[in-house]
């Protein structure tokens, strides 16, 4: 096997030398389309890098996940994944990702629709695009601070609601450092991300489709039911999965908002790395593997749904 590979390489090298000999003159070789095998060589640095710093390290977690602390093969880490607190942290993370992807997705879709097709003045769209770019990148520590200043116990909106309107949101059960607080904060970057990713799909909606359906007697609702939503569905699904993953892997915002106290998977993995609590790296590997597994499932589910939803495309 190794041998034959080697031979192949030799042959192709020789072939390369022959062809350059035939065309003669280095100048010609340079200008002629490069032999594909040579072009592939140009991709080597990139692939080496990606493998060295992404694929292999992530893959090493896979091996670690199947090992006991003493290095022996074991499935014990996976059985640990079924402990109630870990199951619940997966559930919370999935619920958080789902809620913020759905909420941010819907909200972002309405805003994107308003600025793309809503007949608003032109300047608004470019302003909102720029702003969405900023807001979707405005995450992590500063975003957490912004929400603490707004909806924390001393936050301006919290204080305003209490003093001016007599509504105490914390009495009412809201807690910025809990599930819904985190959800509201995540939605802050989910909305603009949705606005950015759904715009191209909305731009592809032809106004004649709406006109043709009106002309054939359909109401606005019927247009959306029969044409608008089915046409947008593949893009909406893609956007939803993207938003889901975006929330699912988010660490920085949750970490700086709750100081690592909320029970979501990224925080749990972070804790395993930092050795804060019950330092058990192999459990950490299994947790990480669980995350990759769920994201892979999400992508697979997405591509399956996508295939169904986009039967009518190429």
């Amino acid at each position, binding site marked *: 096997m190794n041998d034959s590979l080697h031979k192949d390489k030799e042959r192709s090298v020789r072939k390369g030398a022959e062809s350059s000999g035939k065309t003669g003159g280095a100048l010609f070789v340079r200008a002629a389309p490069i032999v594909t095998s040579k072009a592939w060589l140009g991709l080597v640095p990139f692939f080496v890098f990606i493998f060295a710093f992404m694929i292999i390290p992530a893959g090493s977690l896979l091996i670690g996940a199947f090992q006991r602390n003493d290095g022996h093969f074991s499935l014990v880490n996976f059985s640990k994944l079924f402990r109630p607190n870990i199951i619940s942290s997966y559930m919370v993370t999935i619920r958080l990702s789902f809620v913020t992807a759905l909420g941010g997705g819907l909200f972002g879709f309405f805003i994107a629709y308003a600025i793309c097709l809503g007949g608003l003045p032109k300047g608004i769209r470019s302003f909102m695009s720029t702003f969405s770019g900023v807001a979707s990148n405005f995450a992590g520590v500063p975003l957490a601070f912004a929400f603490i200043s707004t909806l924390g116990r001393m936050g301006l909106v919290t204080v305003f609601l209490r003093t001016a309107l007599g509504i105490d949101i914390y009495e009412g059960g809201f807690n910025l450092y809990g599930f819904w607080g985190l959800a509201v904060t995540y939605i802050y970057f989910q909305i603009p991300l949705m606005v950015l990713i759904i715009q191209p799909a909305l731009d592809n909606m*032809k106004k004649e489709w709406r006109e043709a*359906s009106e002309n054939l007697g359909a109401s606005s609702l019927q247009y959306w039911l029969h044409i608008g939503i089915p046409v947008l569905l593949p893009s909406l699904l893609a956007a939803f999965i993207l938003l889901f993953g975006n929330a699912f892997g988010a660490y920085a915002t949750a970490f700086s908002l709750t100081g690592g106290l909320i029970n979501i998977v990224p925080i749990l993995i972070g804790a395993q790395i930092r050795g804060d609590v019950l330092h058990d790296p192999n459990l950490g590997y299994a947790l990480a593997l669980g995350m990759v597994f769920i994201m892979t499932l999400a992508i697979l589910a997405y591509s399956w749904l996508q295939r169904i939803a986009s039967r*009518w495309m190429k």
Partner: protein
Amino acid sequence: MGFIELHEITKSFANNTVVKNLSLSVEEGKFLSFLGGSGCGKTTTLRMIAGFETPTSGRILIEGKDVSRVPPARRNLGMVFQNYALFPNMTVRKNIAFGLKIAKVPAQEMHARVDEMLALIHMENYGDRYPHQLSGGQQQRVALARAIAVRPKALLLDEPLSALDAKIRVQLRDDIRNIQQELGITTIYVTHDQEEAMSISDQIAVMRNGGIEQVGTPFDIYNTPATSYVASFIGTLNLLEGYVVDAALGKVDLNGTTVRTVSDLRGFEGKKIRLTVRPEALSVARQDDAGSASDVNNITGTAERVKFLGSTVRFVMKFGETYMFMDRFNSSQLVLPKKGDSIRVSFAIDACRLLPEGDAIAMPGSGVSDEMIQ
């Protein structure tokens, strides 16, 4: 009373008036085309009839009822768009059935009607295809079937052929006309292509600057254009400048040659005027009528080049500083002049029309610049 009537329709967007005071009546079962260049208001007028735009002022009547404020979904008109606008997520069958489904036509009747439509457009085997699997011409056929499946009161077509190849364009326009005749449906058609308009329509409304220049049959529009714009927009025109030498007898001096016209030239004594002659009205003069015949004019030019247009051959000549076209039927017996040959052409005195000075023209067929003959 017309089947569709427009009464002094005006449409303005912001500070731009696109359609001005336009009135028109279309009889039941007729095929009328709006013909004009871009920005003349033809599409806006059609969209007002369809209900996608609301007139700023004026009324639109269909079967005598004012529909100016009726939403498009309640007008029961079929519309075909330039870019087909088929619903991409539906098969051909479902596209055609869409309007019937909305109208809650019973399933059995709906299927029968869709089959009937597929047969009408000769696409029986394409029912389960999606729009992206069809060619442009096929998509437009389906769009046509979708529009007429609901049995609309009238059919509106907005430049339906302009996105298609020349060959399919010609074929499909005949199909549209045949289907229109078969169903006897009142049809309004928007186009910028004069040949298309003339071949397909009962009536043509030539539009310019948001108004109608002339309404008439293709025959009238071509042979007795009401304005210089219509004359120059439709077909090709030779434009000749000259001076009136005898107003009473209608004599005009063109570059040293005196020609006669049947136009009333009183009031133009000694003035510069413009005459027009269609290229097909010119013929090669016979040797014996050396200017003596009372009802023909003869002028002599030099041959520049010959253009083959298929069934006709266009001789491009230079008369003084003016280029002129003469069209002749193509035949193998035709003797083609060489560049620089002198050609003597004649035309009937009633073939030339007077163009008042300053009257707008669309696009001269010849005469003004030699760009046209390149």
